[in-house]
């Protein structure tokens, strides 16, 4: 039982990371019907921004909640900027052409970011500084043990990094929800996703809204990058390819263009992967097939729900 709970926690942790990245895919898709293949690389850019920020500001040597917050927000801003630049110079000029054209442009942008980083930094893994440390004044009953864990029961435990990932993800998702449903910008975003042409006629600056959507999605991916790096400090220029692909699968699984769907998809993929690793052998699936399982689930779900779990043609898309 404790192993099961532990695996569930592991799966949800990685699932929240997928969900953060999937949100960017889904928002951009909702507005432009564009599969932004460079999004996984934005996640990488976010992690690297955090790395350089932490080292340049000298925060790497003084881990605290404040340092982590500064690095997280800084990385999100830098990635948002990168997202806006990509949108402005690569996607906007081809927006009016066919989807194949935009798709190839997206692949081109993705290759460009990856190879530029490899050319400049090399592909050797860098070690992201560990920034999470609870303040000293906290009572010892609230402090984790020396391995950074809070024991739940039996051998099951919840690490402080896992709490961070899950907590920050949920906070960011709530903020996103607030932006989309409670602000003018969010209303405009929903209008654009509903019908770009009509939104324009209503006086909405669609270019600005699209750029804002990219910024928002990129910032979330960067948050995913920094949070993952607290969990697994290995960062390298090609880290976004497979993670990005899985997040994309998560977005499609939930119904691409649908925000709760992206979160649901991310959590499902994360949990499914972990359970295949943990229990696959018992039902004849060796853990070497783990990556195939994510795709198999996707295909099975799409066979029965062609628009994903929560997606449908009438549902509004943002």
């Amino acid at each position, binding site marked *: 039982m404790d192993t099961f709970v532990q695996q569930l926690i592991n799966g949800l942790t990685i699932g929240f990371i997928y969900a953060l990245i999937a949100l960017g895919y889904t928002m951009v898709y909702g507005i432009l*019907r564009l599969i932004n293949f460079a999004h996984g690389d934005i996640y990488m850019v976010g992690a690297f921004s955090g790395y350089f920020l932490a080292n340049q500001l000298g925060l790497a040597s003084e881990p605290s909640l404040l340092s982590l917050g500064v690095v997280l927000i800084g990385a999100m801003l830098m990635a948002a900027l990168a997202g806006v630049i990509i949108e402005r110079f690569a996607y906007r000029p*081809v927006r009016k052409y066919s989807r194949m054209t935009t798709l*190839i442009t997206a692949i081109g942008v993705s290759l460009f970011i990856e190879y530029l980083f490899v050319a400049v930094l090399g592909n050797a893994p860098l070690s992201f500084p560990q920034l999470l440390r609870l303040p000293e004044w906290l009572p010892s009953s609230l402090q984790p043990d020396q391995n950074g864990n809070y024991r739940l029961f039996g051998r099951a435990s919840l690490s402080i990094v896992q709490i961070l990932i899950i907590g920050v993800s949920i906070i960011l998702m709530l903020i996103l929800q607030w932006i989309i449903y409670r602000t003018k910008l969010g209303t405009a975003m929903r209008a654009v996703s509903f019908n770009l*042409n009509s939104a324009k006629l209503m006086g909405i600056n669609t270019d600005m809204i699209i750029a804002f959507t990219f910024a928002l999605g990129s910032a979330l991916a960067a948050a995913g990058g920094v949070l993952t790096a607290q969990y697994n400090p290995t960062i390298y220029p090609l880290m976004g390819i497979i993670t990005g692909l899985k997040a*994309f699968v998560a977005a499609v699984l939930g119904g691409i263009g649908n925000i709760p769907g992206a979160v649901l998809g991310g959590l499902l993929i994360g949990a499914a992967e972990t359970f295949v690793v943990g229990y696959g052998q018992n039902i004849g699936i*060796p853990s070497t097939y783990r990556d*195939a399982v994510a795709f*198999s689930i996707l295909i099975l779900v799409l066979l029965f729900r062609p628009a994903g779990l929560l997606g449908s043609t009438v549902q509004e898309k943002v």
Partner: protein
Amino acid sequence: MPTFVKRIVGALLIILLLYVVHMMMSREGLFGFGIGAYPADILMLIFVNIILAVSLNLINGFTGQFSIGHAGFMAIGAYTSAYLTVYHGQHWERQMAASVGETAATALVFLVAILVGALAAAVMGLIVGIPSLRLRGDYLAIVTLGFAEIIRIVILNIDVVGGATGFSVPGYSNFIWVGGFAVITIIIIRNIVRSDIGRALISIREDELASEAMGINTTRYKVLAFVISSSFAGVAGVLFAHYKKFLHTNDFQFIRSFEIIIMIVLGGMGSITGSILGAIVITVLPELLRQLPTINLFGQPVNFADLRLVIYALLLIGIMLTRPQGVLGHHEFGLNWLKRAQKRPEGDEALGASKGVPIAERDAPTADKSKEAKNQ
């Protein structure tokens, strides 16, 4: 000249040409002249890629479906045939050599391998084609991508075909096979496109609902396109495997599928000659970029060959920004190109105004056409 004479002459010319190039690739060369092993290698890859691009164009360009899993079908063809030739090939060869001679036996074994590879890929195409009954657009795309990745991961876990180490394969393939099958692929796809099947496929691309209303069994045609296309990808896989003599799943990652997509988009969707052009450019370009020199920039030597993939990516974006409909668009490149281009009906100008329509609902090729019309 009557048509059939023309055709026979043309066929003979092609065979002669293939033979000449083949001889030049051999160690002795032809009359002392030959093609270096490196250009020969690129040339072989060009023709393998032509088969892949032209066949994928049948789905993506002519039928308007969105498949990004071509490398998976290629892998199926490659590995099935390699399993056959590695574990049974020599045995069969020896058996047949007694009755038909060694050269013919080798050719027969390889032909069987190609047919088996094509069949295996076709069956897989059928399996992948079935979800295409229900899925559209990007959902279909991700399913094809998913299937390709599943195929790759499954192969990676099968130890009899090498697993993570890779699989050494006998070198049956040569330029006559590769070039010959490229020509056969081009002719068959061209004939399909010009036949009633092709018209049905194009009608699906232009408007699936309308074509269904016209009595076209869209499901049947879509699956048919998938099966034909994937069987050719299988053939390309067989030729590739027996030319490279070594198979590894790393060569069939999803980025390989993207490469084929890039070829057809670059050349122009819905243009066979465009696909050929795209295959040539995408195969040759990265190799040409290897030759880039080291130049002193701001007093620092910069080796541009090290940046070749960055430059490649930039060129790709650049081409998409300047010629979004591909180099040839819907046109075919040929002697009577200009004449045909003038005759082409251009009734889609009005669609150019539909900028505000979400791109998903806009028909891709028509948007291309309107842009083309402006360019002329």
